């Protein structure tokens, strides 16, 4: 899965436009980033990467890159 696909999955979870998302985008600057978006991201990571965010992981999500980091982890495990 390339960066574009991953950003598209994040955009889908956040209900945002994929073009609006770059790795450096700050989540709290996104209008869509709220408690429901957090739940959507948890669901997306669980479904597509079998990754479960822990309470501390959730707190440390600052940029889109932080979400991407969790999406990479699982791929590394697979290979």
């Amino acid at each position, binding site marked *: 899965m390339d960066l574009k696909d991953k950003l598209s999955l994040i955009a889908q979870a956040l209900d945002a436009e994929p073009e609006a998302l770059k790795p450096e985008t700050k989540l709290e600057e996104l209008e869509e980033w709220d*408690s429901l978006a957090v*739940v959507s991201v*948890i669901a997306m990571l669980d*479904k597509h990467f079998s990754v*479960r*965010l822990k*309470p501390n992981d*959730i707190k440390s999500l600052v940029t889109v890159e932080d979400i991407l980091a969790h999406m990479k982890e699982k791929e590394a495990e697979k290979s």
Partner: protein
Amino acid sequence: MQITHISYLLPEKTLTNDDLAIEYESNWNSKKIYKKTGIKSRHITATETTSQLAVQAAEKLFSESGFPKDKIDFLLLCTQSPDYFLPTTACIVQDILGLPTSCGAFDFNLGCSGFVYGLAITKGLIAGGMAKNVLLLTVETYTKYIHPKDKSVRTIFGDGAAATLITHEEGDPCKIGEFVFGTDGKGATNLIVPAGAMAMPKSEETAKERVDEQGNVRSLNNLYMNGPEIFNFTLDIVPDTVKSLLARAKLSMDDIDLFVFHQANKFMLDSLRDKIGIPDEKFYLNMEDKGNTVSATIPIAMKDALDEGRIRRGDKLMLVGFGVGYSWAGCIVEW
């Protein structure tokens, strides 16, 4: 032993997504609330108390089923929003309904797992020869705990009462089947009304309002829910609960005609259905015009499914409740 009848009652007043969108004036428009929760409107109490909702639901059950009140020998009432600390709400309800004074009655305090636990207690009472006809009332008025400016819970919860009649005749087959239970008190603070009982009595301090990171306002007297943590909890335990219940009942997924889960919110249920691999047509959802009525959701969903012809005589249902506590329970019921 079988579930003979279910009736339910929702308060008259409704709270729609349009109402909420107007109040919040933020990026939470009506469509977004629906997309994220699967809820369009909820019924909320004004001055009605738990005993009043319980009595109305029970009266509806007696009138619809024609079952005589004087044959009820046990009344169980599940709530976390009782009329009083004491006396027991079930005792008040016994009197207003005019149930026999020879009837046993008590409350039990559980949330989303409460209905399944109620069936388990009922099965125990009947199997132990202590009761024949049990009235199980699952009633909740959570909205009384909710701060009007806390959209994280106000969008989800509604009030409601369900009355379920379980009866047994000598020689009847037992149609309330295998159970599994679970408890993890480590999650206690993730869905809680912190103040008001003995651990933290209400005071000026507990009534102080605070604004959280998401802009929601609440005090310690209000309901608090950590949505992401509750979601994580359900992803952890619900698939395993389904698996162990099937194993205990020696059934496969294909043997189940309808899965009726606690109607928490549509997003959570869709994720769980997907993860467990339950076919869409076997998974019942009905919270759109009711919201999450806590321990009342499962019997309310069963009643709607019955009325829609989704449950037929002889069908095997899997009921699973999960939430506040953390507490969870599942059981197989044959209709």
